[in-house]
């Protein structure tokens, strides 16, 4: 039989929200009508990481490949008739330079299968070498061998703290106990990060395989995947994947005849950021409030139900099968001295290409933002900062764009590697507002157990709030620094200890902006509403009328060739005009 061609349709959360299901149905119908059903197979794949919904790949029976982006239902007929029947690709829909640029410079190990295989079909995973690592570990390696291999690879935790994974496993295995547990941390609470979601949606079996290998290495009887409830699609795909793995005998009793038995339970989070912290996560699985406790003892000694427990992040585990198959040397050949392998970043914000980018450790932030990121999104708005590491991380300015991405360099700059959220900010972003945003988040998510976090963060927030309302006073900045440092020294868990970072880094690198708010009662970025006057700067205005068109309440009067006039009594201060104006002419 001749090889079949393939039509890949990206159906992660991004694809689905862009209408991938409808496009897929329409394609199926059209292929059927055109009598092409037996020459082309439609295949559902996960998101490839670039938000270009709906993304479709056509792979011809002889292996050539075309990528279409932003495909809608209306385009389906044309694609089938022109491309598949007449052999003329539809030029206007082919992925362009941005798409190429996005993938150039990436090294996709963890994301290798995302957007290439059907995440709901275990056979597809197996056909690209899936579960080979498990077979190898169980049949050719002792648990100690596995631990040594992972330790030698230099793999460090991708969930934030960067603890060496092999070392963690060895410590856990060293504690005598009736049983041990291993937990996959899929709580991904950092608001602005979506690496783990995409891996779970696009390649769930790689995480499951990593988890089983971890279980074998430490001698665990049971594994848990703790996934946040906000990811319904990831949860659905995990359930399917677990069932398939069970049916195939990769999970259960006497796996592959090795004598090793291991089960995996999926736990849904219930909406608490702090549950990403390992001791809180354990409390949550046990059915209690997710409050962290002081460490030591670390979970590796006393974890779930008091048993030695290893907790690893999704991306950490997804790396494990690849290391087992390709060897520690392969993994450690990429990266810097202290940080090996690759890291996946969730690139978002004011950058042209938003999406998942996987790069070797050690590339610089600049290479990331202006390479795959494609530079800034909006004309006339220059780069201002990157926020890296989420609520625990910091904002780094232009001068630090050449910082290499590795655990130590980022910490030195005042940010952290974190889980991999990377938000690009431009001139239209107010740094005080960003700091206040993160504080409002950590204030809401503080579990309330320790005083520095429960009370201290609120005090920080109050000061920031005053500043953004134009009520800042002399001494506020110094107070932020003093209190921020005190909280960092004294809070109980990682949440509180790192929560001041967004404030401290913005004060450190953008002091002038704080001063403008406090001394001049001005928000240079045009964000803080109480400081805005909603006036048209006639020196900058080009009379294009876009502000009038975008105003939802009709408060802006404009006629061709004249300046717009804003009716203050109708204005609801929604900022739609400010965001729309190409000339920064409204303030």
């Amino acid at each position: 039989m001749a090889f079949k061609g393939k039509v890949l349709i990206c159906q992660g959360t991004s694809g689905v929200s862009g209408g991938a299901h409808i496009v897929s149905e329409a394609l199926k119908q059209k292929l059927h009508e055109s009598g092409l059903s037996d020459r082309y197979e439609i295949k559902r794949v996960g998101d490839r990481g670039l938000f270009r919904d709906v993304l479709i790949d056509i792979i011809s029976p002889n292996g050539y490949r075309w990528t279409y982006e932003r495909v809608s239902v209306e385009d389906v007929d044309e694609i089938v008739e022109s491309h598949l029947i007449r052999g003329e690709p539809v030029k206007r829909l082919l992925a362009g330079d941005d798409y190429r640029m996005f993938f150039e410079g990436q090294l996709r190990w963890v994301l290798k299968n995302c957007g290439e295989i059907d995440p709901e079909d275990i056979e597809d995973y197996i056909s690209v070498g899936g579960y080979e690592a498990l077979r190898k570990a169980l049949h050719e390696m002792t648990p100690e061998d596995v631990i040594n291999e992972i330790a030698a690879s230099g793999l460090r935790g991708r969930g934030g703290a960067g603890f060496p994974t092999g070392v963690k496993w060895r410590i856990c295995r060293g504690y005598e106990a009736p049983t041990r547990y291993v937990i996959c941390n899929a709580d991904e609470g950092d608001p602005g990060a979506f690496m783990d979601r995409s891996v779970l949606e696009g390649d769930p079996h790689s995480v499951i395989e990593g988890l089983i290998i971890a279980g074998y290495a430490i001698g665990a009887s049971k594994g848990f995947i703790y996934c946040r409830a906000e990811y319904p699609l990831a949860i659905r795909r995990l359930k399917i994947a677990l069932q398939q793995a069970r049916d195939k005998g990769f999970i259960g009793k006497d796996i592959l005849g090795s004598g090793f038995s291991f089960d995996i339970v999926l736990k849904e989070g219930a909406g608490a950021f702090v549950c990403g912290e390992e001791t809180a996560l354990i409390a949550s699985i046990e059915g209690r409030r997710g409050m962290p406790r002081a460490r030591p003892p670390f979970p590796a000694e006393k974890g779930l139900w008091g048993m030695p427990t290893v907790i690893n992040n999704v991306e950490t585990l997804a790396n494990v099968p690849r290391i087992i198959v390709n060897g520690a040397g392969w993994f450690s050949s990429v990266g810097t001295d202290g940080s090996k392998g690759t890291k996946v970043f969730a690139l978002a914000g004011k950058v042209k290409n938003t999406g998942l980018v996987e790069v070797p450790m050690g590339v610089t932030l600049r290479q990331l933002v202006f390479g795959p990121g494609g530079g800034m999104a909006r004309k006339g708005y220059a780069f201002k900062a990157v926020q890296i590491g989420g609520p625990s991380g910091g904002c780094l300015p232009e001068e630090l764009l050449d910082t290499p991405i590795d655990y130590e360099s980022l910490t030195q700059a005042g940010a952290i590697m974190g889980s991999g959220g990377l938000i690009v900010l431009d001139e239209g972003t107010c740094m005080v507002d960003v700091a206040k945003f993160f504080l409002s988040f950590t204030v809401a998510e503080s579990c309330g157990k320790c005083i520095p976090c429960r009370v201290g963060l609120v005090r920080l927030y109050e000061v920031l709030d005053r500043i953004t309302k134009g009520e800042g006073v002399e001494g506020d900045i110094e107070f932020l620094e003093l209190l921020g440092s005190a909280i960092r020294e004294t809070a109980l868990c990682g949440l509180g200890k790192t929560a001041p970072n967004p404030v401290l880094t913005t004060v450190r690198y953008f002091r002038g902006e704080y001063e403008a708010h406090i001394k001049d009662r001005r928000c240079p970025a045009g964000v803080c509403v109480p400081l805005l006057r909603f006036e048209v700067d006639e020196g900058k205005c080009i009379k294009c009328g876009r502000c009038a068109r975008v105003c939802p309440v009709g408060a802006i009067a404009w006629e061709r060739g004249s300046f717009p006039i804003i009716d203050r009594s109708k204005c609801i201060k929604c900022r739609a005009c400010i965001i729309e104006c190409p000339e920064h002419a409204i303030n």
Partner: protein
Amino acid sequence: MVKEAFDIDALIERHGRERSSLIPLLQEIQSELGYVPKEAIKAVARELDIFEVEVYEVLTFYAQFRLTPRGKHVIKVCLGTACHVMGGQDIFNYVSQVLGVSAGETTKDGTFTLERVACLGCCGMAPVVAIDDQVHGRQTISKVEKLLREHAANDVGKGEHVTKDAK
């Protein structure tokens, strides 16, 4: 009085009586009823042999749980980092103003519940709004206005505008 529209025996059958079953039990009740009613709290406490206050303790800790019924449509406006810097707060303020409710509240006619969430994991499409778990990316005030109108129309069947009167 809310009727006990959940089958506690079947739930216990599926999840067991361990303390670690508490959260999954409550999650399933909520996904059936849209919230966790008082009767459910009593029943769960009884079956797990713990105090009701222990159930409350857990319910009030996790943002997911609701103790009051929700509207027909749940609008979640994302205020995660990416959405925030892309104007999510403006969208939230607009929706809140138009519906006349703040976060966690339901319009008086029971059509919409407004919620704020911190990241739906779709940051590349920021700012994001999810209505009934359907994600809508790259929102602007005019797009959201249209979404609200469509959902209100669907429901009430009159095709009327969503205005402040909607509460």
